[in-house]
């Protein structure tokens, strides 16, 4: 009993020790930056101190929040679009070899398009609304998820499939019972990569033209010589990405319970 009640505390301590170097590194960097700004006397219009970024950002919190909502919307809808389409295409590719040969080159070419060139064009074609942002987020996040799924299916143990076929399973059953669950860890690895791209893609799309959003907020702040507000918006976007990352990690944890189940006592 005592071992069980002590376990969460031990785990918390372990986690704290584990995270300590990261906190020290980030904290040290911010402190050095703050110190440099004060000691060198650089103008806040050139390089604002972290404290100024936070204070000014807080003063502007309403405007920041109003511009965060559309960015978050673009990110989430874009992500939903890329997740669903990546799944559909991954299944097509898995079942029909012809589709793999036909589609993969197209997808790879889509990854070679430079965002700088494509984003303004997409805005030109689809206007200043939410649509082009969703499209760009989907374009950027689609490929890592698709590749992860296709690789995950291929990583299925051969013996599982032979076993299922010997039991009388058809191809659809083999896919649902063996290939899809086998791909889950790969899928979540791809998801984590895609998430780090998603917010950045949304901001970039807004930067090329939008009514509201963090991207346009950053552009305006830059044009009115407010690097402190640029950095405040960057802070918000980083926080957004980290939050999405944490949500993905939580979903992964809940969806793959067998990966962190404790050892049973042998008998």
């Amino acid at each position: 009993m005592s071992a069980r009640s002590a376990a969460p505390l031990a785990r918390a301590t372990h986690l704290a020790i584990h995270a300590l170097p990261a906190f020290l590194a980030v904290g040290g960097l911010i402190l050095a930056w703050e110190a440099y700004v004060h000691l060198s006397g650089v103008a806040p219009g050139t390089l604002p101190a972290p404290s100024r970024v936070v204070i000014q950002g807080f003063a502007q919190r309403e405007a920041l929040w109003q511009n965060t909502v559309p960015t978050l919307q673009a990110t989430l809808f874009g992500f939903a679009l890329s997740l669903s389409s990546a799944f559909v295409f991954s299944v097509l590719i898995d079942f029909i070899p012809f589709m793999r040969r036909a589609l993969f080159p197209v997808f790879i070419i889509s990854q070679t398009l430079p965002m700088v060139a494509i984003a303004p064009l997409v805005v030109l074609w689809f206007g200043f609304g939410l649509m082009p942002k969703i499209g760009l987020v989907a374009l950027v996040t689609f490929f890592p998820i698709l590749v992860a799924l296709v690789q995950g299916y291929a990583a299925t143990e051969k013996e599982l499939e032979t076993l299922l076929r010997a039991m009388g399973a058809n191809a659809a059953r083999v896919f649902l019972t063996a290939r899809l669950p086998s791909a889950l860890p790969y899928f979540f690895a791809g998801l984590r990569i895609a998430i780090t791209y998603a917010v950045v893609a949304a901001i970039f799309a807004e930067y090329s033209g939008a009514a509201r959003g963090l991207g346009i907020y950053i552009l305006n702040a830059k044009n009115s010589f407010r690097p402190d507000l640029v950095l405040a918006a960057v802070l918000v976007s980083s926080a957004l990405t980290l939050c999405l990352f944490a949500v993905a990690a939580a979903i992964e944890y809940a969806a793959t319970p067998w990966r962190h189940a404790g050892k049973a006592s042998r008998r």
Partner: protein
Amino acid sequence: MKPLLSIDSVGMRFDALQVLNDISLRVAEGEFVTILGPSGAGKSTLFQLLLGEHRPTSGAITFRCAPLERKTNAFAYMPQRDALMPWRRIIDNLTLGLEVQGMPRKAAREKVRPLLPEFGLEGFERHYPSQLSGGMRQRAALLRTVVQDRPMLLLDEPFGALDALTRTRMQAWLETLWAHHSWTAMLITHDVREAVHLSDRIYVLSARPGRVLREIPVALPRPRTADPATARRAQAIEADILDFLLKHTTP
């Protein structure tokens, strides 16, 4: 007695590689038959032919006096290693075959539950495979196989991945298990002792291309490990087969 399964002059080649050469063997109802041979003798290929993963390039396979269908319900297959699905709890792994055959989950669980104690898995239904020891996982894999109620079991080196001590325990356990059930089984192994302890008949296969070198009946009373006199006779047969293998197969 009419054989349940009969394999007649079966050969198998993959492109230029001749894997099996003129294999003929029979399995009667209730019989435990072992295919014993060196690694790479095409033993697993033989199972793939039975399971319809490939078609033999020559010869015929007959099951219950009819040519074996490609999609057959004749066999319950236990692959090398346990092939338990890590994302399924033990109970869901055990019911897998029944569910694939269309049995509702609840009925499948009710069919599996009474067998748990005999397989030493009682109380572990809710565990994941990774939480179990190697021996337990292997017992689970066997239970998943036998619960399908197919006419014949195909066991592909079921204990190959276990340590020597666990393997010996598992073989003794399997012996007692066989005394209570009249399952028909074909076992693939390269472990001579395992073959002698478990089989009614042993077919010794050559190195690739695999062909039957010798057929050895093991007419020993069961259980074979408990009684010292039987154990000695088993040892003599084992030594004889080992000697034969050493002479007739080159590595």
